[in-house]
């Protein structure tokens, strides 16, 4: 869901237990939350657990929601915490607090193929989309969650930092690393098509 297009909800109705309003909320956010779970955990059953646990917590805690962030950010925060908690249980060796690598040099660009001007049908082919989806799944977890919330779900830097309890500087650093990581991989992938075009 692009949060710019999010529907509005009555917090008062949600707090008073209005089931129609809660149903509307669940239907609006279940797709994005399930997608977040799938992209973070890669298994449908785990994504379903994230989805269910998120809305159970929303239901249990809506009375205490203080509106210090938007309702949308609050829901994403609960969902991201659920997904990260499950990841920690499944893979305790993963450090979600690091920034994806030991040093900045790991993120320095090394591919300089100018593939941006390739035709749309090449850039947006089914194969290219599948490659990109796999590249996103392969991002380190600490970068992936930031990338999903900011670049896929459309949260702002501030909202992403609130949802993940990170500083805005930290969010920007992780986002840059995620974007550069994907750019490097796409440069290798599209590089072949680019050089084929140049040779013709």
């Amino acid at each position, binding site marked *: 869901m692009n949060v710019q297009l999010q529907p509005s909800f009555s917090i008062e109705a949600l707090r008073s237990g209005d089931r129609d309003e809660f149903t509307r909320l669940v239907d609006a956010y*279940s797709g994005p939350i399930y997608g977040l779970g799938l992209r973070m955990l890669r298994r449908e059953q785990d994504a379903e657990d994230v989805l269910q646990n998120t809305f159970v917590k929303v239901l249990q805690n809506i009375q205490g929601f203080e509106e210090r962030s938007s309702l949308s950010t609050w829901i994403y925060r609960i969902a991201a915490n659920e997904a990260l908690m499950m990841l920690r249980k499944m893979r305790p060796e993963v450090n979600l607090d690091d920034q994806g690598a030991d040093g900045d040099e790991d993120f320095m660009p090394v591919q300089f193929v100018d593939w941006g001007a390739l035709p749309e049908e090449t850039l947006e082919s089914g194969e290219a989309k599948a490659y990109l989806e796999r590249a996103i799944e392969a991002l380190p977890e600490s970068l992936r969650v930031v990338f999903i919330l900011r670049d896929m779900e459309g949260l702002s830097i501030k909202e992403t930092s609130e949802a993940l309890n990170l500083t805005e500087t930290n969010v920007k650093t992780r*986002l840059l690393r995620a974007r550069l990581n994907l750019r490097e991989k796409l440069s290798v992938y599209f590089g072949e098509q680019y050089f084929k075009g140049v040779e013709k």
Partner: protein
Amino acid sequence: MTDHTHNTLTCDQLLGMLTDYLDGQSRDEICHEIEAHISECNNCRVVVDTTRRTISLVHACNDKPLSIPEDVRERLFQRLNLDDHGASKSNPS
């Protein structure tokens, strides 16, 4: 990327400003510095262009809202005791 200076900005400094620049959050003078740099540094121009393209491809792949499978929705509504509301599925934007 070799770190060298074009105008007053180094390639490393440009990289550090890239997130704000691509998100349209940079101040005008920073935008001018970045644009002056990439007009002289081909590698940085390619990095800026292809990173921007990467983001637009992600948006293109993600343009349709993901809907959850019907059985997943049914189990969710059961867990939330919203079973009687589950039949009338609305289509969120």
